[in-house]
């Protein structure tokens, strides 16, 4: 069973590198036309086990191209899930044709070299390609076993999984951009179901890294066991207002939402809560929010943004004061400023938008336990649901389902479930009463740490 022999470079004979391919496509630009070619190739494996057996094993390579054409200040885009020459030619023709129907906009244009030198980051692990499928299966089975052994109340696992991916990409423009990057990632993930009598609760745990040696199976198992079992006996709490302590995962979710309101495109289009507020105090002085894809420890670290510009460290909120917004090339030109290297894209199927890549709060000094003690009476939030349906980043309304543990006399007390927590994004930033020292790298565009926010509405009974 060898599905993932280490294959480097391109598939097939006479491999053309992705950078060469993108360069060739960008070279097809006609007079007065700009072309951007983004090509990506990925290889991934997913192993799911159930009751000691492999339930499914998927493995595949996929590749695609997204082409952006700008002609006479009009933009068109087309993509295809193939790197065959005839498909690429058809995709380019589509993108050209599409440009004819877009509105003319003087700010449209591809990125050009801006002199910022990309940091050197090592995001690729050869050890992943060499890691045999059998070992991946063993890891997923060992994780399932560890979760079951973790507590006699673990009744079942909804999933125990190994996953990995190796992705290479290149972006080249006819305006002088040429960037290539590659990264590997792998994870172990478990979702435990704990039961006690009629009571059932679930908890998830995971470990992520760039290569197998980064993974911590025991921690993933222990996390899912703790989270599922500590909710057993949870009750629906009474409605009240209290201080909510957010676990690192929850803080990361909140930071991702916040970063979304600080993108320059939303500001220009009148959709940001924070438009016109640069230089103003928008948060407590203890809060500094940074987007830093150059941080080698950030899971989502990257040398280049989606338009091929070097990434950089951007301080968004500096000691409570709104410092800047994030821009890609288009939104920056429109705002009369320069790109902050913040173009992002969801694979080859979309053109570049603007967004944060690796946001984090600058850690404080308190441990989670010290924060519980400081809060005295409150709530520790361990999971939230309904982010998409209950957070309105335009109005700032924030209302999500939650599960967690009440804090009494400065320590964790009884578990609670089936309630919501609510406030507004604006108020939450001003109500932060503690920032923890427990920075945790998470598989997302945000890192997390424990924070405490006062005056949260808890809706229950």
């Amino acid at each position, binding site marked *: *069973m*060898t*599905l993932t022999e280490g294959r480097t470079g391109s598939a097939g004979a006479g491999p053309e590198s992705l950078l060469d391919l993108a360069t060739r496509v960008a070279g097809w630009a006609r007079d007065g036309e700009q072309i951007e070619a983004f090509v990506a190739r990925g290889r991934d494996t997913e192993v799911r086990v*159930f009751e000691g*057996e*492999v*339930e*499914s094993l*998927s*493995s*595949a*390579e996929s*590749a695609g191209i997204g082409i952006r054409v700008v002609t006479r200040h009009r*933009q*068109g*885009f*087309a993509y*295809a899930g*193939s790197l065959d020459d005839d*498909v690429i030619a*058809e995709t380019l023709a589509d993108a050209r044709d*599409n*440009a*004819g*129907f*877009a*509105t003319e906009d003087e700010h449209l244009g591809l990125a050009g070299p801006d002199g910022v030198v990309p940091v050197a980051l090592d995001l690729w692990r050869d050890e992943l390609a060499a890691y045999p499928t059998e070992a991946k299966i063993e890891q997923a089975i060992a994780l399932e076993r560890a979760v079951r052994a973790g507590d006699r109340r673990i*009744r079942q696992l909804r999933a125990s999984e190994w996953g990995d991916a190796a992705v290479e990409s290149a972006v080249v423009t006819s305006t002088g951009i040429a960037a290539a990057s590659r990264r590997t990632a792998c994870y172990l993930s478990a979702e435990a*179901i704990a039961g006690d009598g009629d009571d*059932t*609760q*679930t908890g998830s745990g995971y470990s992520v890294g760039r290569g197998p040696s980064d993974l911590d199976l025991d921690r993933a198992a222990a996390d899912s066991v703790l989270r599922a079992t500590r909710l057993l006996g949870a009750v*629906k709490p009474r*409605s009240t*207002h209290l201080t909510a302590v957010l676990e690192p995962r929850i803080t990361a979710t909140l930071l991702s939402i916040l970063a979304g309101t600080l993108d320059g495109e939303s500001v220009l*289009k*009148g*959709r940001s*809560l924070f438009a016109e507020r640069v230089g103003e105090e928008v948060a407590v002085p203890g809060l500094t929010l940074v987007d830093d894809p150059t941080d080698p420890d950030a899971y989502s670290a990257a040398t280049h943004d989606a338009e091929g510009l070097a990434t950089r460290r951007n301080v968004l909120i500096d000691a409570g004061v709104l410092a800047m917004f994030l821009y890609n090339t288009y939104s920056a030109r429109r705002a009369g400023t320069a790109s902050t290297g913040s173009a992002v894209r969801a694979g080859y199927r*979309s*053109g570049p938008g603007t967004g944060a890549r690796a946001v984090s709060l600058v850690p404080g000094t308190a441990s989670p336990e010290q924060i519980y003690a400081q809060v005295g009476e409150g709530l520790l939030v361990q999971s939230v*649901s*309904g982010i*998409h*349906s*209950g957070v309105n980043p335009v*109005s*700032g*309304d924030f*209302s*999500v*389902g939650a599960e967690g543990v009440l804090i009494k006399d400065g320590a964790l007390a009884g578990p609670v*479930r*089936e*309630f*919501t927590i*609510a406030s507004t994004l604006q108020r939450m930033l001003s109500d932060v009463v503690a920032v923890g020292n427990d920075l945790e790298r998470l598989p997302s565009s945000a890192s997390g740490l424990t924070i405490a926010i006062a005056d949260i509405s808890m*809706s*229950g*009974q």
Partner: protein
Amino acid sequence: MLIDEAVIEGVLGAALRRGGDFAEVFAEDRRGTGARLDDGRVEDLASGRERGAGIRVVSGETTGFAHTSDLSEAGLRTAAEAAAAAARQGGGGVRTVAFRRVHAPAPTDVAVLPETVAKAEKVALLRRADEAARRAGGSIRQVSALYGDSRRRILVANSEGVLASDDQVKTRFAVSAVASGDTGMQTGRESVGATIGFEMFDSVSVEDLAAAASTRALTKLRARPAPSGRVPVVIKQGSGGVLFHEACGHGLEADLVAKDSSVFKGKVGELVASPLVTLVDDGTMGPEWGAIAVDDEGHRAQRNVLIENGVLTDYMWDWLRARKEGRPGSGNGRRESYQHLPMVRMTNTYVLAGGEDPDEIIRQTPYGVYVAQLGGGQVNTATGDFVFGMTEAYLIEDGRITEPLRDANLIGNGPEVLRNIDVVGNDFAMGSPGTCGKDGQGVPVGDGQPTLRVTGLTVGGTAR
């Protein structure tokens, strides 16, 4: 046909050459166009194309899966061998397959294939929507509009002889508006989508959609914070299907039931909801968003009654789970694309109409919340706890709809909420097109319901 019948036979043979109980080829060719207008400008017209095949081999309890964008015989054979290796080697043997073509009627006849419509005509819809949304009032500060169409042709063949194909054409349109006033900014959104061609716009006015989105945003400028705590909730027809999708739909998926991940496990034949509730999942319901002729395993779409007068009658099934139980499937094996394994998914899920006049339901509610539009939701099927967001809601006071409320999530427990439905209206409407996410895969689904009341749901507002 995406792949020649003889090639499929060869590929299935290769997949099972070293053993295995079952092999399947799923080929897909998807093309689509999307156009977006924002800030008064047509920003992007994008078109895309994806083509490939996923090959599944099942050996005992293990499923091996591989996919390829190469539909040549060589490409398919390589993927078949990878899938077979993943499913482990067994006894081996040669298998011949005699295909039976699955005849399934298309849920709708498509009159105008979107690919035959000029791009300029699609873009013109966006401009009309933008103008109409801005005409709704000076407080409308921003408008975005989205047009999208897709055509997905699939072919499924398996070693049991199933050979089926479908040609799924979908068209959608959405408008979002931002209104700004003394109380800050508010948003309104309206969308339509159907398993149908460009003729959708013969019966859908983009101007009406735009006006509805703007009105929603403007109304919320005078909204007050939603209540905090448990209150009676009346849900308008066609706006709350997501409640059933989350409260019980996912919990009735046989794969979750089998993994002890559903509160509805072992409850077939029991009263699990108010006797007023009859819940149906219906893939044949054209031209709704979740309509299909066959599912992504080649099984004909069906109308399945899941809950009848409050009694749980059946779960939803895919091939794998139905085989384990030795029973027929239900046409619910679906996948996002050829790059994914199928699993149990809903199609169009709805509650049948009851007997009460919807206005009377409001009149008989002394205090509560009236929900006129819901956003998405999320459920933990193992506990039954679920949330869903309200994006247009009002207070009910003394049997009358009064003030608008700000956005908030509602939270409840599936089995409890189903029991607490105490009135069901004699109206009915399907809701907006949805994308249902499960294990990282999104598939198009529809939902619908009559106006109904839940005696108590927790509203997650901030009102003191």
